[in-house]
C-alpha cells in the first residue's frame, strides 16, 4: 500500500513488491531450509515419504502375502526386516504402516488446524461474547487430555483408520484454538490492523490478509508438534486395538503383534517398526525446532 506513494524511491518500491511476491509461508520454508536441523528433518521426512510409497510398490512381496516356509525369519537380503508369524515380509508391512502413520497424522493436522485456528482467530479478534462462548467450549475439550479425547470420539465413531484420523483431528482443535487466539490478541492491537480497519476492510479481510501471516510461525511450530503427537497417538490407538483392523498393517498393530512374540530370538519384530516411528518423531521435532529458530527475530547470524 505504502509502495504506491509517488514520493517513494523506485528501488525501494521494487524491493517491497519483490517481498510481497514471496509469501510468509515461502519465507519461513526458505529460512527453515537454511537451518541445519531443518535440512536434516526435511531430508528424513522426504526419504520416509518416498520409501512409504516406493517400497510396497517395488517389492516383489505383498503385505498380505504369506510366503511358504518363511515364518518368523530373521532379516536376510530378501527380507531386510525379517518376516512375521504368518510368514509375511516385514519390510513391506512396516513401510505400509509408515504410510498409514504419515497419512493419518497429516490428515489429523489438516482437520484440526483449520477448525482450531478459525475458532481461535474469531475468539481473539471479536472478543466479548464470541470469545466467552468459544473459549468455554475449548476449555471443556481441554479437560480431556491427550489420548482420551480420541478414545471418546472413537467410541462414538467406531474403529478404523479414517476414524482415528478424525478423532485425532478433533483432539487437536483446542491446542490450535488457544494458540491462534493468543496470537490474534497480540496482533489486533497493532497499528497496521487499526489502519486496515480504518480503511474499511471487512473483519474477514483484516484477519486473513493482514493479521494471519504474522501469526503464522508459532502455528507452524504447533502443527509440526501436533503431527508428532498424532503419530504417537495413532500408534497407541492401533496398539490398543482401537484403530484399523488387522489385515491392514500399521505400526501400532505391528508392535501389538510383535509383543506376542517377545522372546530373546525375535528382535527384528520390535526394532524396525520402533526405528521407523522414532525417525518420524525426531525429524518432526527437529522441524519444529528449526521453525522456531528460523523465525526468531532475536537469533543472530541469520
Amino acid at each position, binding site marked *: 500500500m505504502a509502495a504506491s506513494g509517488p514520493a517513494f524511491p523506485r528501488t525501494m518500491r521494487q524491493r517491497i513488491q519483490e517481498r510481497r511476491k514471496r509469501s510468509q509461508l515461502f519465507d519461513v520454508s526458505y529460512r527453515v531450509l537454511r537451518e541445519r536441523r531443518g535440512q536434516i528433518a526435511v531430508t528424513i521426512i522426504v526419504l520416509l515419504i518416498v520409501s512409504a510409497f516406493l517400497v510396497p510398490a517395488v517389492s516383489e512381496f505383498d503385505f498380505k502375502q504369506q510366503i511358504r516356509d518363511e515364518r518368523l525369519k530373521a532379516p536376510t537380503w530378501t527380507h531386510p526386516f525379517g518376516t512375521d508369524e504368518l510368514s509375511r515380509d516385514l519390510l513391506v508391512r512396516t513401510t505400509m504402516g509408515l504410510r498409514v502413520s504419515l497419512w493419518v497424522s497429516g490428515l489429523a493436522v489438516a482437520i484440526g488446524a483449520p477448525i482450531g485456528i478459525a475458532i481461535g482467530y474469531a475468539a481473539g479478534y471479536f472478543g466479548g461474547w464470541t470469545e466467552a462462548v468459544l473459549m468455554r467450549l475449548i476449555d471443556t475439550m481441554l479437560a480431556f*487430555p491427550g489420548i482420551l479425547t480420541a478414545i471418546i470420539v472413537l*467410541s*462414538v465413531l467406531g474403529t478404523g483408520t479414517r476414524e482415528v484420523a478424525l478423532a485425532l483431528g478433533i483432539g487437536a482443535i483446542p491446542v490450535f484454538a488457544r494458540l491462534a487466539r493468543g496470537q490474534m490478541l497480540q496482533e489486533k492491537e497493532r497499528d497496521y490492523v487499526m489502519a486496515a480497519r480504518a480503511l474499511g476492510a471487512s473483519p474477514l479481510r483484516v484477519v486473513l490478509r493482514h493479521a494471519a501471516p504474522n501469526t503464522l510461525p508459532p502455528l507452524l511450530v504447533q502443527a509440526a508438534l501436533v503431527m508428532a503427537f498424532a503419530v504417537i497417538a495413532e500408534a497407541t490407538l492401533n496398539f490398543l486395538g482401537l484403530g484399523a483392523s488387522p489385515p491392514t498393517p500399521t505400526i501400532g498393530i505391528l508392535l501389538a503383534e510383535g*509383543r506376542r512374540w517377545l522372546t530373546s530370538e525375535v528382535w527384528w519384530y520390535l526394532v524396525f517398526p520402533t526405528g521407523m516411528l*522414532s525417525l518420524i518423531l525426531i525429524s518432526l521435532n527437529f522441524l519444529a525446532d528449526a521453525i522456531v529458530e528460523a523465525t526468531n527475530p532475536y537469533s543472530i547470524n541469520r
Partner: protein
Amino acid sequence: MLLASITIFLVIRLIPGDPAVQRAGEDATPEQVEETRRQLGLGGSLHEQYFDWLANALQGDFGRSFTRTLPVSDLLKQAVVPTLELAVAGYLFALIVGVPLGLFAGLRPGGPADYFATLFTIGTLGIPNFILGLLLLWIVGVQLDWVPVSGRVGVGEDPIGAMKFLVLPTIAVGSSLAAVLARFVRASVQEVMNQDYVRTARAKGLHDRQVVLRHVLRNALIPVITVAALQVGGLISGALVIEIVFSRPGFGGLIVGAVTGRDFPLVQAMLLVLVVVFITANTLADILYGFADPRIRVH
C-alpha cells in the same frame, strides 16, 4: 466440570447401536425391549436421564456395568489402586530423575549432565512411552530375565515382589515427563543464574552449594511447579496405556474393554472420574503456584 459431565453424557449417548436392543436379544418383542431399557436406566427423556445419572454419581453410584453385571463403582474401586500406584510411582520417578538432571545441566551448560539431558530428551522424543515399555519388557524382562514380565502384586501383600512388578512400568510412565521437567528446570536454572541476586549471593562469599540450594533452586522451581502439575493428565493417560503393555489390571484395561464392549455406564463413570482428577490437578497447580510465588497472590 459440569460442562464436561454433560459432554461425557451426551457423547456417550451418540454411540450408535441401542444397548437395550442388544441386551434383550434378537427376537425380543418391543415390550421386552422397552422393559430392558427401563432396567438399564435408559427410559425417560435425555435430560431426565442426565440428572438421574449425575445425582447418583455424586453419591458414588454409577449404576451397573452392562457387560459385567457388577456395579460400576465396584469395578472402579478394584481398578483405582493399581492405576494410582503406577501413576504415583511414575510421577515420583519423573521428579527424582528430571529435577536434578535439569539442575546440573543448567548449572553447567555443555557439561556431562547437560549432554546426558539432551540425549535423554531426544530419546524420549523419538520413543513414545508405550514403546519404551515394550523395549524395557523385552530387554530387561525377557532377555535378562530380571523381573516378571506382566501382572501385579499388591504392595500390602508382598512389598519386594510388588516393586519388581512396578519397576519397568514406572520407568516407562515417568521417562517422558522426566525429560520435559529436565528441559524446563534447565532453562529455568539458567535464567535464574543470570539474576542479580545470585551474583550478590556469590559476591558476599556464600559457598556454591548454598547459593544453589537457597537462591537458585527456590526461584527456579516456581515455574516448574506449574508444568509438573499440568502434566498430571498426560501422565495418567500414559499410565493407562502402559498398564495394557504390561498386562497390569487397572483403568487402562477397563476403559478399552468398556469402549469396545459399548458399556455406557462404565465408560461414562471412568471418563467422569478421570476428568475430575485432571481438573483438580490443574486447580491445584494454580493454588501451589500462589504459595510458591507470593507475588501472584496480590492479584
